[in-house]
Each structure stands twice: as structure tokens, then as C-alpha cells.
């Protein structure tokens, strides 16, 4: 946000300690290579902020800027090092002489399905994505994952039919597509994991009974009168009711019950 702060001429909202800390020392500039082209940028910045500092204005390759949306997958290398490195541009701090490219999109086949017609059987996934079994266990997907997900192990669990375990391992997936870009078996791991999570959420994990009960109690009209009363109450009355409401203590079990049960389904 450095740019915006400058644009506004300082940052009045954010507390600063002008007297106690010396003015920030002039930042050291280091070279990075964006798609092969050299730019001098301040050390300590993320790849995203460094590219903006260099003058790039993103349309693609920038999303949440908080490491959860998968828009800014980036591949880079370091001089004299054979390894491929990856990271999210918004999360990865630059290193001198790194050379990088963003990979904001990678084509991947996605199988269409009707969730209602699927069962919780692992074969459903295999039918939609037979390429699962082309996996040669090279582990390139795991190495490339910027979220440190055990991608290959997740694939293995799906091949074994263990959807729950695959869901657990892949839960942080941000669907950036870097795994698909490196896959020897040419599979779209992130779409497959998404399918696994949806089957798990809808068909394997037990449905919440109290949620259905709550919904049905509302439908029955039980709260209609008390709610209508609240809606027509004046502010003074509302403030009183608000102050009087009993607060569930933080450190209690789920079976805690308030003293007043008048406006609950159990009354």
C-alpha cells in the first residue's frame, strides 16, 4: 500500500512515531529480472510490490493480495541454481538477481457434473477424471505448490479411494494451477480436489441436523411474533433488550443453556 499512502500525501490514519524513531534509512535497491528484463527495486518488497514499484500495473496476476485467491502464481529461478522455485507474488519476498515470470492462468480440463447424481463412491471421481491413474508419482506437483500442499499424496489418496484424507490434505488449495502446469500425467489436480471436496461436503460428511431443525422452526412461524415485536420496538426498548441479553461464556461447552428460554425453540 506504499503507493497509495504517497498518493494521499502521508498516512494520517496510521500511527507513526516520528519523534522516537529516526527517519527510515534510504532503502537499498537490488536487481530482479521480470521476464528477463532487469529492474532495480527496494529490497524487502514482495514480488508484487516490486513489480508495481518497477512500473507494472496489474490487470491479471493480482487478486486478493493476501495469499488466498490464486491469481498471482509465480515461477522463478536463481542464478547458478538448477532448481525451479515458485511462490505467490503477493507473499514472496524478492531476492537479488532472481528471474521470474507470473503464471496467472494455466489451461486445465474440467469435467462437468451434476452433484445430485453423484454418489460418495470413489469411482465417481475416477470416472470423471481417469487421468488420475496416469500419475507416475514424480512429485513435481508437490514441489511446485506455493501452499505447500502434499499434492502427490492427495492424488494417491484419491487413487486409493480415501476421499476424506484427500480433502484434509488439499483443504488450503487456492487453485492457482501451478501443479497442473508441471504434471507429467497432464491432470488438473485442483479441479479434481475441488470435486473431492464437494462430494465430501455434500455426501460423506454427516449433514447438520440442528441446522435443519432451526430452519424448520423458523418456517413454522414460531419466532414470527417476537421478531415482529422487535421490528416495531423503539430504540429505547431495543437498547434495553440488548443490554439485558445473556451472553454465552467463552469457555463453555456447546450444551450451555441460557436462563431465559422464552425465545428458543425448546420453550
Amino acid at each position: 500500500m506504499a503507493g497509495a499512502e504517497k498518493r494521499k500525501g502521508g498516512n494520517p490514519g496510521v500511527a507513526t512515531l516520528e519523534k522516537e524513531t529516526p527517519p527510515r534509512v534510504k532503502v537499498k535497491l537490488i536487481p530482479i529480472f521480470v521476464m528477463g528484463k532487469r529492474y532495480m527495486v527496494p529490497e524487502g518488497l514482495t514480488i508484487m510490490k516490486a513489480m508495481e514499484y518497477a512500473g507494472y500495473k496489474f490487470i491479471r496476476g493480482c487478486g486478493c493480495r493476501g495469499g488466498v485467491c490464486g491469481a498471482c502464481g509465480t515461477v522463478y529461478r536463481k542464478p547458478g541454481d538448477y532448481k525451479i522455485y515458485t511462490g505467490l507474488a503477493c507473499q514472496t519476498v524478492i531476492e537479488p538477481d532472481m528471474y521470474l515470470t507470473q503464471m496467472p492462468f494455466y489451461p486445465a480440463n474440467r469435467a462437468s457434473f451434476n452433484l445430485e447424481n453423484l454418489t460418495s463412491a470413489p469411482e465417481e471421481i475416477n470416472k470423471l477424471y481417469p487421468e488420475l491413474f496416469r500419475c507416475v508419482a514424480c512429485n513435481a506437483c508437490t514441489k511446485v505448490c506455493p501452499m505447500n500442499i502434499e499434492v502427490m499424496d492427495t492424488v494417491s489418496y484419491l487413487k486409493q479411494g480415501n476421499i476424506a484424507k484427500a480433502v484434509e490434505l488439499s483443504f488450503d488449495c487456492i487453485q492457482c494451477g501451478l501443479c497442473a502446469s508441471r504434471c507429467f500425467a497432464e491432470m488438473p489436480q485442483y479441479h479434481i480436489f475441488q470435486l473431492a471436496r464437494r462430494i465430501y461436503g455434500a455426501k460423506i460428511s454427516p449433514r447438520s441436523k440442528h441446522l435443519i431443525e432451526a430452519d424448520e422452526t423458523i418456517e413454522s412461524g414460531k419466532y414470527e411474533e417476537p421478531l415482529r415485536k422487535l421490528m416495531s420496538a423503539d430504540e429505547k426498548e431495543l437498547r434495553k433488550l440488548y443490554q439485558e441479553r445473556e451472553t454465552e461464556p467463552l469457555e463453555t461447552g456447546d450444551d450451555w443453556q441460557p436462563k431465559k428460554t422464552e425465545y428458543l425453540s425448546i420453550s
Partner: protein
Amino acid sequence: MPYPEGLQKYIKKVEETRPERVERRRRGEEFPALSPEGREEMLQYHPDYKEEGRRELKVGTNKGYKIPHEFADLLEAKSRIDPDVVNLSAIDYETDVLVIGGGGAGTAAALLAQEQGAKVILATKLRHGDANTMMAEGGIQAASKGWKDSPYYHYLDVLGGGHFQNSPELVYTLVTQAPGVLRWLEGLGVAFSKDKNGKLESMHGGGTCRKRMHYCSDITGSEIMRTIRDEVRNRSQDIEVIEFSPAVELVLNEHGHCAGAVLYNMETEEYFIVKARAVVLATGGCGRLHVQGFPTTNHYGATADGIVLGYRVGVGVCFLHTVQYHPTCAIFPEQIEGLLLTEKFRGAGADVLNVDGEKFVFEREPRDVESGAFIKECLAKGKGVPTPTGKLGIWVDSPMIDLLSGEGTVRREFMGKWKVFNRQGIDISKEPMLVYPGLHYQNGGLVYNANCETSVPGLFIAGEVSGGVHGANRLMGNSLLDVHLFGRIAGRSASLYAQESYQEGKLTLEHVKAYHKELDDAGITTDRVAPMLLPDYTEPAVRERQLTASYLGTLR
């Protein structure tokens, strides 16, 4: 890099006071919550209350209404297009329902409109799913546990948080449809955190009297967003998604009804006309306006586009004078500045502490009160923690969570955040986090009713672009609820309107011309254009070298 030397002495103070604080928590002793008068006092330190931060609007439906300069700048700006040049008879797309915005609200609207039989176009500025919904961490409220909670208490909490100014009809809809929305999401395969019998996990959020926040680990929004986006992809025969194409104007017809929009392909710089029988505006919030210079937790595209579009066709705004500052945004290390640290940390038992390692406020006040308390502690009382980057912060003592709930809880329940800090060399299950309030949510927005209708027939809205349901301050866990709940209603309403009430008529941009004239008449001469579409983080030195005299072709 781990916390530098300079901060270590302050971390020591936190560690010194920690054992006793943990003991107090174990005994169930809470720091006293503020009285109504105490809350009022804290609010005086909240940025909303700074007179110099806002000005009166000179044009439009709410002329005279005082709102932050950053909003006023956008509303007192010209269109990106010249309405005389646009050829409205050359229609590029035609559809039943046009949904503008690809976040939670827009996506839910597209799904529901399709279910009602509509052909849908979903146009979005960035990628489908690039939205604040994706970033929402904490959870989603619903009074689902009938033995201790009901919509009655949810209603009271929403009103108390919103300073009793919320629209009763909208709040009624929010609290009574909440369990139904969770059922819908569960059916689509959203993996909520639950026990082996299917009982949903739930916890407190700021301002809740019952543990009503349901969640999916600490990536609730992301799990919901990727699931409903996936479902839209299953229905691609009826829902066409057009990415990187924000709407820059709404199109009306001769009856004054909304009948489409002008889209701008940001990659090719072309404008396209969409003719639609009904339009859902779900463009989200405003964090990237950096109101009063604050950093933001928001998505790159959160530039309040929908407010501009809606206001230009005559829809009023409300509660835009209040903006929500999330009390706990990372302020150090600099790489993650503005990063949202969910309220769940405090709900799970982490104390908030000043430079002496002392508690100074109940950690679950409503967000505006909590933010005011942080700012007061730093600026008025001089008890902020000085950061190596020259700022002040407040500690969130995350290691307490492991002490209270068992080793490994932080890593399990806050896996996403643990990883982000770990990349910076900080283990938040062992070391506390430094925070300061950051721009988080647009409390207000365009005026609408419980059917998501606006004053313009054919125009429906949902989500953060709207105003009224949260009053002057939204509670945690009510925005994920809001976007999906009202998104569904907007989709259904728009589809019904398209089938039953739509009237064919000649398309027009006369309202844009009239708005330009109103600007002229108000004496506003400006080269500002709106909507903003994307924030500009170009360095001034770079800008000085951008000397293109006139633009040719697609070369910017």
C-alpha cells in the same frame, strides 16, 4: 526474517504477563465489557467521527449528504465513456439476467436466477471469484442451535452492532433465512467444520451473545467461494461468465427501467453493450479507495464501482458515512501489512495487549468500538508497540490459544495464517502478532428492500454494494451471510422480473448526460472519471516518466 531484536523486549513483556492471563481465562474471568457510555467514548477515536474526513455531496439523489472525500470524489466524476458516441443499437450480448460482479453475491444470484429458468451473463472485473468473499476468514453467522439461540437473539445482536439504525425488514430477512442459506451451501458441498455427528462447530464473534459463527477452518469464504464458483461452471450452458470486463455504466430504457450495461474489456480496451431483461448489481466494496489513507484488507478490485453506477441511475445511498475498520490487521512485518487476522483469534482466547503486555479492552467489542479502543491506546495514551517500520501496533497474543486449548490448536484452526507468518519466520503459536485497524468493509451502500429491489425497476442489488442491513456497523460473520443470502434473493427476484414484469423499450444513456449536466450546474469541473476499476500504486517517479502525449491504438 523473524521478529527483529528491537521487538524482543516487548515480546518479553507479553510473555511475562501471559501465565497469569491464561490462568484468569481458565477461571472464566473476562475483562469487563464496556458500558454503553464507554463504547461511545471509544467511538470518538474512530475515523468515522473525524469531521475533516468528509464533505457534502453536491449532486444526485443524496445531495447534501456528508460522506468520506474518497466516495465523494467518485460520485463527483465523469463517466468513462462519452454517451453521445456509444451506439446502443449495436448490441453485443443479449440475456435474461445480467449479473455484475463475480463474488459471493453475484455468484449466488447467477445460480438462483438460472434455477428459475433464466439465461444468465455474469460479468466480472477480474477473475470469477476474485472478491472479498474469497478473503473472508472468520465465518458465517446463523442461529442454528435451537437449545440456546434463535433469530430473536441474532436480530438483537445485529441491531446492537449497527447502532440500532439498521433497516428492520432487512435484518428480519437476514436472521430468518440464515439457517436456510447454510443448508443450501452444505448441499452444494461446502465442508463446514463439524463433529462426527454433523453438529456444526460454532464460536463467538465481536458483538454476539451466542456462539453462532460457523466456519470452514480459517478459510470459510474461500471454501464457499470456490464451491459456488465450481457450481456455476457446471451450469455453463445457461450461465456465461465474462471475466476482466467490469461494467462502467448501467443502461436504462425509455421507460426508465434498467435494461443492461456497458462492459469494458480491460485487456482489449473495447466497450460492449449488454441488453438484459433484468440486472443484478453485486460489485462489492471499497477498501481500495484507502479512505483517510488507511491500509486495507480488501481485494485489489474493491473500488466501489457499483455505488457510482447505481447513483448515476438515481438509486440513493445510505450509511456511506460509516466505513468499517477491522481492528486486527497485520501492521508488521511490512510484507503482510493490511493482512486480515480474523476475529476468531480473539474468539478462541487470544488477548489484545498494549506495549506493557497489559489488557486494556474486552477483546470482543463490536469492531468499531474495538478499533476506536486500539487507536486510543496508541495515539492518546501512548501505549502502542513501536514497530521497526515506524508505526504503532497492538499485540494479539495467539500463543494463549495453544495454552488454553492444547498444543497444535493454532496450527490446526488457523492453518492459513500460520503459514503466512511462518513464511516470514514467525511462529504464531509461540509468538504474538502485531496489529492495527485497517479499512475492511463498506457498511453502507445503495438503498434496497428485502426483495433486493431498488428504486429503479429492473435493477436489483446484493452484498457489500448495498446498505441498510448492517446499519452503521457490521458484525463479524454477517457479511458472508449477507452476500449469499441476498445474492440468492436478488437472483430469484431478477429472474421473476425478467419473466413477468419486463417491458421492451429503446435503450438509452440519457441519464449519463443528465448526470454530466448536473455536475456542470453544480460548478464541478474535474477530469476525474469513475468508476475507478483498479487502484493505482504507480510510484510518482515512474509516473513522471509516463509522458505519452496522446493515446493511439491500444497502447496505454
